[in-house]
């Protein structure tokens, strides 16, 4: 099967600081991959380069930025517009064929029909994040990049989000998401990519990471901590 997303030798530097170092991986259609790593590992940088929000210093991404749906870490929405107006704006900017129909579909998918006329400023953090993810999906992109999508959601909302994302993956959408919750990755991801100081130090199934950590347990969080401690990644800081 051909790769839906191919990343080759991706590097990004901010002056002297190396945020990403020669990162390469491939994702198959419908694959759900989690990017793990400590703060400053380069997770957000990787996803924003995939989305075209930043330019890589070197390397390549096989999918054009317009074909990547992107939900940034902080909801990128207009608080003085309603939920529906936000969705419609980005639907029009994405040049979706029927923006209103697309908005209706996204409202239904995200369960926000009853909030459609509410200003973003009046929504909870969780609902804003749902709108943020819905906007990422509005152009029906083949690849979805979600930067800590469950960060401000309560447990019920998280479950709903992951059900929704899993449904997209089953439908053939390739999903790559970053998270600080290894448990989430263990439950929902097919693949785990571990970044440490800008280097891709692990690429494989969650169970393989547990095995690689040599802990003998079933807890991905503990395995990740052991793995990072054992790895000999360079320690220079990245933003």
């Amino acid at each position, binding site marked *: 099967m051909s790769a839906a997303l191919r990343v080759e030798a991706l590097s990004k530097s901010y002056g002297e600081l190396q945020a990403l170092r020669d990162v390469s991986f491939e994702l198959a259609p419908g694959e759900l991959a989690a990017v793990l790593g400590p703060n400053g590992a380069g997770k957000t940088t990787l996803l*924003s380069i995939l*989305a*075209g*929000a*930043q330019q890589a210093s070197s390397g390549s991404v096989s999918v*054009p*930025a*317009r074909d990547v749906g*992107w939900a*940034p870490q*902080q*909801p*990128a*929405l*207009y*608080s*003085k*517009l309603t939920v529906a*107006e936000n969705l419609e*704006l*980005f639907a*029009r*900017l*994405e040049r979706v064929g029927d923006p209103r129909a697309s908005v209706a579909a996204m409202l239904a998918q995200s369960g926000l029909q009853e909030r459609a006329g509410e*200003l973003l400023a009046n929504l909870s953090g969780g609902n804003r994040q749902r709108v943020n993810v819905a*906007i990422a999906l509005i152009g029906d992109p083949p690849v979805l990049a979600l930067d800590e999508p469950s960060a401000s959601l309560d447990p019920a909302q998280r479950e709903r989000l992951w059900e929704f994302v899993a449904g997209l993956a089953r439908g053939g959408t390739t999903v790559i998401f970053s998270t600080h919750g290894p448990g989430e990755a263990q439950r929902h991801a097919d693949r785990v990519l571990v970044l440490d100081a800008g280097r891709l130090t692990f690429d494989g199934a969650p169970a393989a990471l547990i095995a690689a950590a040599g802990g003998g347990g079933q807890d991905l969080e503990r395995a990740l901590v052991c793995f990072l401690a054992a790895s000999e990644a360079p320690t220079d800081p990245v933003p």
Partner: protein
Amino acid sequence: MISLLRKDLLILRRSRLTVALLVLYPVAIALLIGFALSRSPGKPHVAVVDETPPGQTVQIGGRQVSVSAYVDGLFAGVQASRVRTRAQATAEVRSAKVIAAVVIPPDIVSKVSSDTLQAEVEVIYNGNALEQSLVSSQLRSALAEANLGFSEQIQRAAAQVIAVLLHGGNLGALGAPSSFVGLEHLPAVLERVIARTPPGRERSSLEEVAGFASFAAQNLGLSRRVLTSIGQPIKIRTTLLDGRRTPLDTFAVVVAVTISMMFLAVLLAAGGVALEREEHALARLIRGLVPRELLLAEKILLSAACAFAVGLAMLAGIGAFVPLDWSRIGQWLAALACGGLAFGALGVAIGALAREVRAASLLAFLLSLPLAFLALVPAGAVGRGFYDAIGVISFVFPFKAALQALDAAVNGARPALPGAVAHLLVLGVAFAALGRLGLRRAS
């Protein structure tokens, strides 16, 4: 572009307080500045104590000049209220009912009439340094006017006396003959006498007297003309080197409109760009959905359109009270449009450099207000080096160019509209490029 414009208009519609402040604040500031510019300083309210006896006059030959002429001259230059005593005047100044008091002492006539003493009036004032400076300046001007008027009357009386001495007539002075021959007639009379006088010492003496009388008559005539001319020794003749005279009222209108447009467009454009960052939407927009140039162009157009509408409304509104030449409306529209675009471009440059709306608004405000004041500093009001520096600053920011464009459009002033418009467009492109540079690392 249309989607972005629609979005920004929706946001503006829901930010009524912000929009109201954006429009009303600059209009209020502009009208205050315009009002201050269009009004000359008012006459100071001054108490006047005239301690001279009623009807007292200064005697010049047989002519009399009333001291009331001096008081009347003083009254013309101030808002005067008469009080009877110096103590009352001092009390009025202390209680701030008047800004100052002028005391005309009883000996003013004797001193003016004397050959050796200079007459004095006393000025009493109070208040802080600024008030003292204002009072001092305005009163000096009023007193100078009164002095000038009084001295003109004295000169006129003196000239009349000289005229009688020269041409003959009745001087009217105590002890003077009822009728003079007149100095200019003496040479002819003496010539006739000399003709009948045989040669000798007596005739020689008469010829000397006739020669002196002729010389004296010529010089007395000259001194009369000199006396008349020193009443106003130097007249002012004005020559305008460039442009035409712009009435202060219509110039104030232009200043008010330009200031309003600048605040509105700069704040709106700066806030609009900064809002995209603050809402974290900028990174989402520029990742291929909207080119940065288009985003900046949209902000510039929106802010320029709003500034244009407010500027035109102000001109139309003020035009009901101040006569404006409506036949030049085509030029007004060109100046308003180009001014709005240049201010919008300055705004996006500020917005692109600032990271949040508050910082952008503060920066826009801090930059705009001094720019307006600097552009209004007249030549000669400050040192040459400072004025040159002001000139450079005013040249690289759009306020002065917009002011000149609108002044040319509304009042036909120089420099002409095409030059000012071209200047605005160049500045607009430069600031838009700066804004684009500021968005380079937008994410």
